[in-house]
């Protein structure tokens, strides 16, 4: 079973539907026991980093996630959920993340050329930086759907894919059993479904 961690941030309808569509057994849950019993975890999220990090902390789920991650359970973060995997974020101040991947979340503003719109919204092509299981069923240059104003920086070792938006922007990152996509696989058509499919697969 895949646990979609519900900590009160964002709309989980599409994520749940897309996992159902590919035939994965998934459950939206905030129950620590269910999270501990799950085979894999997905950490979703949209909105502001500080608010989401606080909700994780208040619910105690931050500790559960860290424990499960330390046990080697596969964990995928999506969008803000991916950003939360990093050490810290500079979105409106400085906030601590889960610290499961080295690096920090910083504004696109000041990094990309000024004439480009922020948020980075829309379909953009990803290019692979490393081989990774998430890319098993997709190819270099496939398009995925982004909506974000901040990106993961100082994480060269863990970037597995990036995208071009006036500069190279982290699209996906991974460190061992921890991985995350800045884009929304549940909104990226067949390419996105294939990324979720690869994540959900049990390798033997």
């Amino acid at each position, binding site marked *: 079973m895949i646990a979609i961690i519900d900590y009160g941030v964002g709309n989980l*309808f599409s994520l749940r539907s897309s996992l159902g569509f590919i035939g994965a057994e998934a459950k939206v849950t905030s129950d620590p026991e269910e999270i501990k019993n799950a085979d894999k975890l997905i950490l979703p999220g949209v909105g502001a980093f500080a608010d989401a990090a606080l909700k994780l902390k208040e619910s105690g789920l931050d500790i559960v996630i860290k424990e499960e991650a330390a046990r080697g359970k596969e964990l995928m973060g999506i969008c803000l959920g991916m950003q939360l995997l990093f050490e810290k974020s500079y979105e409106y101040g400085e906030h601590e993340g889960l610290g499961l991947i080295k690096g920090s979340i910083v504004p696109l503003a000041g990094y990309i050329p000024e004439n480009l719109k922020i*948020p980075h*919204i829309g379909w953009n092509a990803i290019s692979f930086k490393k081989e990774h299981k998430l890319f098993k069923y997709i190819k270099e240059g496939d398009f995925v759907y982004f909506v974000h104003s901040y990106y993961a920086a100082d994480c060269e070792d863990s970037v597995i894919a990036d995208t071009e938006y006036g500069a190279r922007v982290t699209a996906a990152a991974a460190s061992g059993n921890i991985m995350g996509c800045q884009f929304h696989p549940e909104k990226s*058509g067949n390419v*996105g479904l294939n990324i979720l499919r690869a994540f959900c697969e049990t390798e033997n």
Partner: protein
Amino acid sequence: MITKRIIPCLDVKNGRVVKGVNFEGLVDVSSPTGLAEYYSENGADELVFYDITASFEGRELFTDILTKVARRIFIPLTVGGGINTVADFDRVLKCGADKVSVNSGAIKNPELIKEAAQKYGNQCVVLSTDVKRVGSEFRVFAKGGREDTGMEAIGWIKKCVELGAGEVVVNSIDTDGVKKGFDIEMLKAVTAAVNVPVIASGGAGSTADFINLFREIPDIDAGLAASVFHFGEIKIPDLKAELAKNNITVRL
């Protein structure tokens, strides 16, 4: 680089897709779920659903259809029509919408944009506006394009973006349904005024109209149309192949 988006729009009334010519003489085209799946499989970058039903029963039916569509469509879905309160945002977001578009609701109460943006984020709030020339200025029209609000359109759009609208759909009543091309002049004025994605609507009749739109206005993000797609006059994969040939970045 980010691609230009091609967006089919489905006007839904009493559970069926309809599209008017100049907003009058509605013609039934097809089933919303069937069309949505077709588009999702055939190159649409996003879908827009407008609920143009007025009755409570129609509203319930729409919510039902929306849920069915959202369960099977894994591209961004924008929903509009009858959005007057934050509770309306909540209702359609729970049925699987990713973005919510406000038009008359924002005219009646501009603070709605601010409240919704604070609750769901700017990326979730789309301003949709119907614009028509009156004398020498662009005016905002309400009630499906029937009523002149007296408001100047560019100022209105700027105000809504400041309040938190993360994207703007601008429909030109002057070119809508005429199929002679998008309203380049008006759209240029809008893209020059705001720095959020602008989606052009109204007037697409041919592939050349889309090429012209993206060439003439490099800052425009997307082209939206209904009947030319619904009736198969333009097939989205063919349109995108032509755009790519003309060096316009699209998702193929």
